[in-house]
């Protein structure tokens, strides 16, 4: 029988060692990588210890990234990283990242060549879906699921139904992958893709850079999706080769007549730069339509928008300009490599001359951890991914999500607006 499958189904089938899988089916799958960070790994480690399990199926497939509350913000955070470090040492886990080696996990892993097209990756972090930009299946889970994956080298999955999003057309100026995904979430809602695979395709996706593709796949979880995914193309392979990856990529494509629960076609030429208003990523508006919303902080960085292209976008706006005196602009390069490249290109000087605060690669304020949390009544424009109640600090603070151009221009203006208002 000639079975038509989507890219998501093909990757899951390959890892389940089955000819075919169908949506709704529960399967056991081998995992290529299972990661956790300094918030989630301690729970995984304690679960293993509590149950007396001292087997790690393959230490080379475990990744531990100390990126959330680091550089350690307090004693409990330092204890958590120490727990990870000791665990990595005990089991000979080579991929433990801290100090000068650490980046934000979903920026770091692709650029180190640890995730490749065709891989199946699970992570104790909801934004693990980022790697779908490489043509991999990747999804977030909790700490216990990851502990189980470390011990057994496998996990269980329900094969998701796929939703296809076809992006066509030429984007307007200052419209990026961030706007594509914010617009999409605004259309389908924060549970519009719950349990589903979001497959992004079309000529406008082909034209996107890898960095913008990562941004899009990263926010699939914000529509409730299990994974976001794009087929690998020449750009993907070029990117993968540049990482010096030691394994071979496996390329999968959706069959032309594979089954989708729904197909959405989006003309990107109609999308204006988007801003998601508090307190849900689905509350999207075009930046043009907003009243004057004054801000006290702007954040550029995160696993969503902390890559070199994001910093280039921000620098293109900030060059020769000054951050508004009432605004704190915080910039978080996503990894040591991004930081080094930004230094080489002179972007760091642009940021410092504009009056920005340059922060280390860290998740920092995105989740209200440290390095820039908000006081009562404060508003922040941010290139991060969530604007939930209290997400970046005080329960009565507000986060507005946007792309790096908008965050930078708003930082200069003191209120939320695009570069056309400069």
């Amino acid at each position, binding site marked *: 029988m000639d079975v038509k499958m989507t890219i998501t189904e093909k990757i899951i089938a390959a890892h389940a060692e089955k000819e075919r899988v169908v949506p709704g089916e*529960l399967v056991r799958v081998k995992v290529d990588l299972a990661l956790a960070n300094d*918030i*989630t790994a*301690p*729970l995984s480690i*304690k*679960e*293993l210890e*509590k*149950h*007396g*399990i001292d*087997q790690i199926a393959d230490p080379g497939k475990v990744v531990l990234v100390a990126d*959330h*509350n680091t550089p350690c*913000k*307090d004693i*409990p*955070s330092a204890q*958590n990283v120490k727990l990870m470090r000791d665990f990595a040492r005990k089991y000979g886990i080579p991929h433990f990242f801290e100090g000068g080696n650490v980046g934000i996990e979903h920026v770091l892993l692709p650029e180190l060549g640890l995730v490749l097209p065709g891989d199946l990756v699970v*992570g*104790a*972090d*909801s934004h*693990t879906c980022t790697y779908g930009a490489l043509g991999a299946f990747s999804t*977030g*889970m*909790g*700490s*216990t*699921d990851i*502990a*189980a994956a470390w*011990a*057994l080298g496998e996990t*269980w999955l329900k094969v998701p139904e796929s939703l296809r999003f076809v992006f066509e057309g030429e984007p307007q100026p200052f419209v990026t992958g961030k706007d594509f995904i914010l617009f999409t979430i605004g259309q389908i809602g*924060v*549970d519009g893709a*719950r*349990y589903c695979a979001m497959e992004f395709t079309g000529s406008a996706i082909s034209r996107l850079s890898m960095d913008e593709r990562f941004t899009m796949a990263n926010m699939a*979880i914000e529509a*409730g999706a*299990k994974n976001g995914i794009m087929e690998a193309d020449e750009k993907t392979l070029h990117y993968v080769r540049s990482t010096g990856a030691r394994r071979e990529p496996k390329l999968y494509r959706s069959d032309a007549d594979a089954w989708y629960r729904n197909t959405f076609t989006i003309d990107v030429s109609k999308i204006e730069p988007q801003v998601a208003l508090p307190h*849900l990523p689905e509350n999207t508006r075009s930046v043009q339509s907003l009243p004057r919303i004054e801000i006290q902080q702007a954040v550029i960085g995160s696993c969503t928008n902390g890559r070199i292209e994001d910093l280039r976008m921000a620098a293109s706006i900030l060059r020769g300009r000054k951050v508004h005196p009432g605004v704190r602009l915080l910039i978080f390069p996503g990894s040591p490599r991004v930081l080094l490249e930004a230094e080489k290109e002179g972007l760091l000087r642009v940021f410092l001359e504009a009056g920005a605060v340059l922060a280390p690669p860290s998740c920092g304020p995105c*989740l*209200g*951890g440290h390095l820039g*949390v908000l006081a009562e009544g404060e508003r922040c424009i941010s290139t991060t991914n*969530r604007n*939930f*109640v*209290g*997400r970046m600090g005080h*329960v009565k603070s507000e986060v507005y999500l946007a792309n790096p151009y908008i965050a930078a221009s708003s930082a200069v203006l003191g209120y939320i607006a695009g570069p056309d208002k400069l």
Partner: protein
Amino acid sequence: MLIRGKVIKFGDNVDTDVIIPARYLTSSDPMELARHCMEDLDPTFAKRVTKETVLVAGRNFGCGSSREHAPLSIKASGVQAVIAESFARIFYRNAINIGLPILESAEAARRIKEGDEVEITLETGIIRNCTTGETFQAQAFPPFLQEIIAQGGLMNLVKKRVSS
């Protein structure tokens, strides 16, 4: 297993950041987490919750971050079960893995009110509203998930596989 409790009700899209804010995630001690459960959504929750509380919520309960601290804090706060119209998938897995009973029923989630007394038979998924006399049937768990639940959580199952 029979669960009886009084309902505390929440709306749609209760995210894991409000269930347990990130500022408390340096701890993984369930009792410590329970002290701050839901505090950004309802500062009185910790005072109102008892060992006989059932949470009822709308769509997409537990969306957002993968933090397992969220179901852990709910469970340690005394909540006996969560009934929702729908659950975000990571929360759903986490709840099963750590042994927090969850039930999906759109009708129950819509019709049960704050303060109602409910009775849940976990094996059958039957939810009875003792205040109104209505009954609802929650979605059944697939056999594989039933096995995790029966074993008292995922790690007990993993332990068995590792030692065999």
